[in-house]
């Protein structure tokens, strides 16, 4: 049982016009097995929240705390956060030229597990994970995210989620750019990871359609750098009908 606790998180980003505050005090607590949907308009700070928890160097924490089972996440390096059990499925996964998917995955698994996975079982593990997400085995030999379509990048992110077995995952708009079939396949991957590892999930999304596949326990409306409303799954239905206009104008 794990708890990710975000308290009064304030984050700024360095721009040409100086430091700009983006997160203005975010509070959120996620327990293992729970799924929290964060919904909000473009530019409201959702990715900033995701990146800040993962430790992207571009963002400066100006206040608040993030802890995982009491351990200070903000004090950890990016790789230490992953080793502590955090995972970020990125909105825009990064291309790494010349590094094959199989080399990348094995290096990551070695780092997270503390020892190189046995080659025999590992090959099978990767093959199964790829098959489960309907990915062509040829992906293993391609360079990380290089020339991947939008949908392929997202599948690759969820494949990592299944292979690397974190405690808490932040999925940043994993659903955007997916057609209906891909959305279902990717959602099933998330649900498998939830079932297998009692994963806690922060599901950042624009649209309610992914919530048909991944059932949220809580829905948070995000606007202008903070959570402005919280509720259960029914809140998503309301957003579907009325949009974010009510929240943005506030």
């Amino acid at each position: 049982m794990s708890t990710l606790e975000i308290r009064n998180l304030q984050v700024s980003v360095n721009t040409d016009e100086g430091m700009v505050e983006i997160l203005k005090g975010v509070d959120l607590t996620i327990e293992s097995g729970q799924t929290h949907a964060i919904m909000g308009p473009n530019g409201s700070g959702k990715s900033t929240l995701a990146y800040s928890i993962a430790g992207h160097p571009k963002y400066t924490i100006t206040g608040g705390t993030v802890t995982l089972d009491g351990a200070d996440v903000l004090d950890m390096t990016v790789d230490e956060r992953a080793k502590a059990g955090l995972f970020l499925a990125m909105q825009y996964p990064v291309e790494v030229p010349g590094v094959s998917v199989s080399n990348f995955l094995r290096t990551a698994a070695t780092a997270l597990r503390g020892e190189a996975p046995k080659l025999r079982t590992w090959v099978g593990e990767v093959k199964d994970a790829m098959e489960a997400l309907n990915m062509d085995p040829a992906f293993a030999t391609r360079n990380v995210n290089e020339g991947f379509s939008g949908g392929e990048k997202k599948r690759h992110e969820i494949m990592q989620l299944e292979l690397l077995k974190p405690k808490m995952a932040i999925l940043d708009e994993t659903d955007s750019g997916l057609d209906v079939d891909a959305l279902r396949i990717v959602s099933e991957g998330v649900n498998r990871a939830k079932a297998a590892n009692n994963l806690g999930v922060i599901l950042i999304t624009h649209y309610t359609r992914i919530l048909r596949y991944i059932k949220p326990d809580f829905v948070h409306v995000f606007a202008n750098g903070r959570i402005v409303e919280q509720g259960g799954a029914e809140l998503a239905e309301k957003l579907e009908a009325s949009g974010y206009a009510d929240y943005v104008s506030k």
Partner: protein
Amino acid sequence: MSVLTTNYLTPTGREEAWRFTPLKRLRGLHDGAAVQSDRESLITKGALPSGATFTRENLEPLSASDDVIIERVRGAVSSVAHLSIAANTELTEPIFLGRSAGGLDTAEFSRVRISLGTHAVATVIVENTTDTVLAEDLEIYLAPGSNLKFVTLQEFESKSVYTARHHAIVDKDATFKSITVTVGGDVVRILPTVAFKAPGASADLLGVYFATAGQFFEHRNHVDHAVPHAKSNVNYKGALAGKDAHTVWIGDVLIRAAAEGTDTYELNRNLLLSDGARADSVPNLEIETGEIIGAGHASTTGRFDDEQLFYLMSRGIAMADARRLVVRGFFNEIVTEIGNEEVQNRIMDRIDNELEKAARNG
């Protein structure tokens, strides 16, 4: 041994061709102060396949060179180490040549010839190790329809001085690919050059280099499109780490008036891994005819991509390992072209070591 006394021009450092090179560190190769050794260090490693011969003979140069060190080499040495691949010989395994005998007190002046008969196919890998002072005039002739992959590995130790011209003459429908790897030495200055002799010829000039603190590596490509319908592609990638690491890449491509239907592209990318290192990159395209298929060049010099490092680290990979992956990935595209796992792994390991060494020394 003899001290060279002939009247050669001595570069001052103001000449375009010498403006980057630290002449003082050339151990007298450029000004005649070097004492010529009687070393003939180039040897074949392992038995030669049938169709290939390795001999020493007196040969006239195939091409003129205005490089003053090459002139000195030609003045001093008439015996040429000659690897010859007979016409229609198709070799599936690479031929390994190498230099492992060296010395810093005297300088080896060496002339080398590699010739391929018509429709011969071969891969030649030259392994340069040890600490040495070496000036090399290496000429390659590809007869019509032949195909050569020519790999040179500069894996010298830290005090070596190596200046060389690797000049390929590529005849009708012949295919030349060179892969020039420079990861060791104090001063390395190589002129990988190509002249097309007849239409249908093509050349890929690929290279990687990794310079750490104090090292100077210079690669001056020159591609002479003097005939129609030849194709060239230049792609050199370098990384630098450490104080006063200095690399120079010059990409001269000349498309003469007669060279209709030329297709050429040249690219140089440098990765600056620390402060205090300097990468000079000078593409230079001269076009004397508009009747070409394409001609372009690009040159970039950048640092580690934060987004790449973040992505890798967010999967638990430590900073040092993430950097290593990115650097390996950067070089991978060219190193895999060597096509020999053992050599590729050795070069990648060497690059890892250089990176680690640089990280240790800040």
